C-alpha cells in the first residue's frame, strides 16, 4: 500500500465505490483468488487448512535449513551445538560423496570429465546441431577424452581401474551407457515383436516378458555373480561393463514395449505406400516407420530414460560406488553420522535436478514436435 492510497479514502469519501474497481492490477487477482481458493465454505476451509499446514512446514524448513543451520565448519562439534541443519557435512565431505573411491589426487580429472560430459549432452540436445556430421565426431571426441580421463594410463596420467571409479561420474557413465546400449536393443526387440516372422516374434516376446517379470536386482545378481560362469573358461568381461549391460537390457525391455506402442499406432496405409514404392523391409522401417513411431512414443520414451537414471542407484546392492553408495559410506564417519538427513537431501537434490532438467527438455521437444519443428 502506498501512502497515497492510504490517504485517498479520507480525502474523497464519495469515491469509495469507484476505488474498489479502480486498481485494475488487484481486481483480477482477487477474483482469481476467489475463483480458485474460496468458491464455497468447504473449499475455503480446505484452503485455510492447507495454507496453514504449508506455512508451518515452510517455517520449519526455513528455521531448520537456513536460520539455525551451520553452513561451513570443519568442526562437527559446532554442528552439534546448532539446532538446525548442518550443511557443513556436505562442504566437508563433498569429495568422497561426489567422487567415491577414485584416487584423491586425481579428482581434478573427474571434474574435467563432468564438464566434457555435460557439455556434450547439452550440445546433443540442441536441434541446431542435429546433424550426423557434427554429432558423430563430437561423440567420438568426448567418449575418447572421457575414457582417457577416467582410465588414464596414457599422457602421463595414472591408470585407474574401473573398480576404483565412483561417485557422480560413475552414475553418469552408468546412465549414458544404459541409454546408449539400451535404445538400439529396444528398437530391435520392438521390431522383433512386430515382425511377420514367428521365430523373431517368439524370441522377442519371451525375452521381453521374462525380463520385465523379474526385479532389476536379480538381473544385477546375474550380471555380477552368474554371468562369468556362462563364459568359456578364461574369458573375462569387465564387471562395470557387465553391470551396465545388465541395466541396459532391463531398460531396453521396457523401452521396447513403448516403441511397440508407437509402431502399432502407425496406420497400415504407411506400410502399403512404402510397399507400392517398392521399398524393402529395412528401407521402410528405417525411413518411414521408425521415425514416426519414435516421435509418437517420445513422451513415454523420455519417462523411461528418466527412470533409467533413477535405476542406476540400484548398484548399491552390488557394491558399486555410485553417488548414493558413496554417500552411505561417508555417513559411516562417527563424527558426521548424525547429519545423514542433510547428506541424503543433497543426493536427492542431485537426482531431482537432473530429472527435472530432463523432463523440462522432454516437454520442450514435445512442443517442437507439435509445432512441426522436428
Amino acid at each position, binding site marked *: 500500500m502506498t501512502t497515497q492510497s492510504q490517504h485517498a479514502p479520507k480525502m474523497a469519501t464519495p469515491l469509495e465505490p469507484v476505488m474498489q474497481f479502480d486498481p485494475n492490477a488487484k481486481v483480477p487477482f482477487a477474483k482469481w483468488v476467489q475463483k*480458485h*481458493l474460496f*468458491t464455497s465454505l468447504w*473449499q475455503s476451509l*480446505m*484452503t485455510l487448512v*492447507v495454507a496453514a499446514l504449508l506455512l508451518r512446514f515452510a517455517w520449519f524448513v526455513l528455521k531448520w535449513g537456513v536460520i539455525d543451520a551451520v553452513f561451513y565448519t570443519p568442526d562437527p562439534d559446532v554442528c552439534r551445538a546448532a539446532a538446525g541443519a548442518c550443511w557443513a557435512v556436505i562442504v566437508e565431505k563433498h569429495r568422497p560423496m561426489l567422487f567415491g573411491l577414485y584416487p584423491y589426487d586425481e579428482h581434478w580429472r573427474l571434474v574435467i570429465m563432468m564438464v566434457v560430459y555435460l557439455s556434450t549432452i547439452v550440445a546433443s540436445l540442441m536441434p541446431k546441431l542435429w546433424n550426423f556430421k557434427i554429432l558423430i565426431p563430437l561423440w567420438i571426441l568426448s567418449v575418447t577424452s572421457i575414457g582417457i580421463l577416467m582410465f588414464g594410463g596414457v599422457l602421463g596420467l595414472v591408470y585407474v581401474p574401473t573398480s576404483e571409479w565412483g561417485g557422480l561420474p560413475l552414475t553418469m557413465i552408468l546412465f549414458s551407457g544404459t541409454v546408449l546400449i539400451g535404445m538400439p536393443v529396444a528398437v530391435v526387440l520392438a521390431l522383433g515383436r*512386430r515382425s*511377420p*516372422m*514367428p*521365430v*523373431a516374434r517368439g*524370441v522377442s516376446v519371451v525375452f521381453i516378458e*521374462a525380463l*520385465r*517379470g*523379474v*526385479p*532389476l*536386482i*536379480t538381473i544385477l*545378481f546375474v550380471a555380477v*555373480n*552368474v554371468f562369468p*560362469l*556362462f*563364459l*568359456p*573358461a578364461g574369458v573375462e568381461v569387465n564387471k562395470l561393463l557387465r553391470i551396465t549391460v545388465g541395466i541396459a537390457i532391463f531398460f531396453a525391455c521396457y523401452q521396447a514395449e513403448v516403441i511397440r506402442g508407437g509402431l502399432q499406432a502407425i496406420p*497400415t496405409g504407411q*506400410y*502399403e505406400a*512404402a*510397399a507400392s*514404392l*517398392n*521399398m*524393402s*523391409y529395412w528401407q*521402410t522401417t528405417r525411413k518411414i516407420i521408425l521415425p514416426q513411431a519414435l516421435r509418437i512414443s517420445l513422451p513415454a520414451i523420455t519417462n523411461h530414460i*528418466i527412470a533409467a537414471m*533413477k*535405476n542406476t*542407484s*540400484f548398484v*548399491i*546392492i552390488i557394491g558399486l560406488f555410485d553417488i*548414493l553408495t558413496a554417500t*552411505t559410506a561417508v555417513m559411516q564417519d562417527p563424527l558426521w553420522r*548424525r547429519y*545423514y*538427513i542433510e547428506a*541424503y537431501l543433497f543426493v*536427492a537434490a542431485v*537426482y*531431482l535436478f537432473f*530429472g*527435472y532438467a530432463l*523432463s523440462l527438455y522432454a516437454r520442450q521437444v514435445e512442443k517442437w514436435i507439435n509445432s512441426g519443428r522436428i
Partner: protein
Amino acid sequence: MTHIDGSDQRGAKPRQTLSTLLYSKSFRTAVTQVVMAAVVIFIGLFLYQNVVENLRAQNIATGFGFLEQTSQFDIGEKMITYSARDSYGRAFVVGLLNTLSVSAAGIFLATLIGFTVGISRISSNWLLSKVATGYVEIVRNIPVILQVIFWSVLLRNLPNARNAVEVYGVGFLTNRGLTFAVPATHPIHSTMGIALVAGIVLAILGSIWARRHRESTGTYVNMLWPSIGLVIGLPVLAWLFGGAPTAISYPVQKGFNFQGGVTISPEFTALLIGIALYASGFIAEIVRAGLQATPKGQIEAARSMGFRPWFVTRYVVLPQALRVIVPPLTSQYVSLIKNSSIAVVVGYPDLVNIGNTVMNQTGQAVEAIAVMMLVYLTISLITSTFMNFYNRLVAIKER
C-alpha cells in the same frame, strides 16, 4: 502386415531357377527364421555348456538338492515357524511370505495415498492441486532405493528402547519399531476372521443381486449400507457371541525388548514407506488421467437428468475411469512388488534377502537366483493374467 517386404517383385516371371528361389520372399523368410532359430539355440547351448563345464571344472555343487538341507541360520521376521534347524526351502518360503506381506501393505498404502493425491491433483482448489503436484514430482523423481535408505536411517535414529516415545498411551515408538497394544489372543478371533470373510462374500453376492434386479426391473437398490453392515456387523456379532472378550495385551518393557503387544520392525516400516510413497506418486498420475478421461458433457448430461452427484460418480465417471485406471494400476502394483526386493539394503528378510543369504551359505548362485527369478515371474504372470481377464470384463461391449 505380411506385405511389408516388396523387394521380391523384381523376380516377377515364374521361372523356377536358383535365383528366383533365392529372391523368393517366402524362401528368404524361411531361411532367415531357420538361421535365427539356429543362432538362438546355438547361443543357448553354448551358455549351458559353459556353465556345466565351469561348475564341473571348479567342483562347485549343482542342483536343487540344497533346498532340503538344514539352513543353520535364523530369520528375524517370520510368518510361519522357522528355526535354524529348518531347510533352505522353508527359508525361501519365509522370504516369499515376507515379500507378499510387505507388498500387500504397500499396495494398500500406495493406493490410499495415490487416490487421495490423484483426486487432489484435479481439485478446483488451486492450492491443494499445487501441493499435490509438488508431492507427485518429488516422490516420483527421487530413486526409490534412496527413499528406502533414508527412511531406514531415520527410523534407526529414533530414540532407543530405554527412551521410548509413548504414542497416545497404546504404543511405543523406538528404533526397534512401533510397538502397540492389541487385543489379547482369544479363540473367538479366528471365528471373527471367518465372519469377516463371510460378510465380504455376502456383500458381493448382494451387489450382484442388486445389479441383476436393476437390469431386469429398472429399480435401483442401494446396497452400500447393507454391505457395510454385513462386513462390519458379522464380525461384531461373532465377537459378542464369544463373550465379548476385552482383554488387551499391553506392551511392557522387559529385558531388551517389549513383551506383549505387536511390534512392527523398522526394516519393514522403512521399506513399506519407501516403496509405497514412491508408487503413490505414479498412482496419483494414473488416477488423475483416469478421472479426466470422462468427457464433461456426460457428467453434465447425467446431472441434468437429476441424478445425485454420488450416483453420477458411481455409475458414470467411475466405470469409465476404472477402464483407464486399472491396467496401468496393475502394472504399478507389479512394479511395487518388484521394488520390495530392495529389502536387502535395509535388512528386511524378503525373498531376495533370504535368497542372498542362501546363495552365500551354499555357494549355489545359479540355483538361488533361478528360484528368486521364477517366483517373481510367477507373480508377474498371475497379475497379467488377472489384468487380461479384467480388461475383457470391462471392455466396451458393442451391441
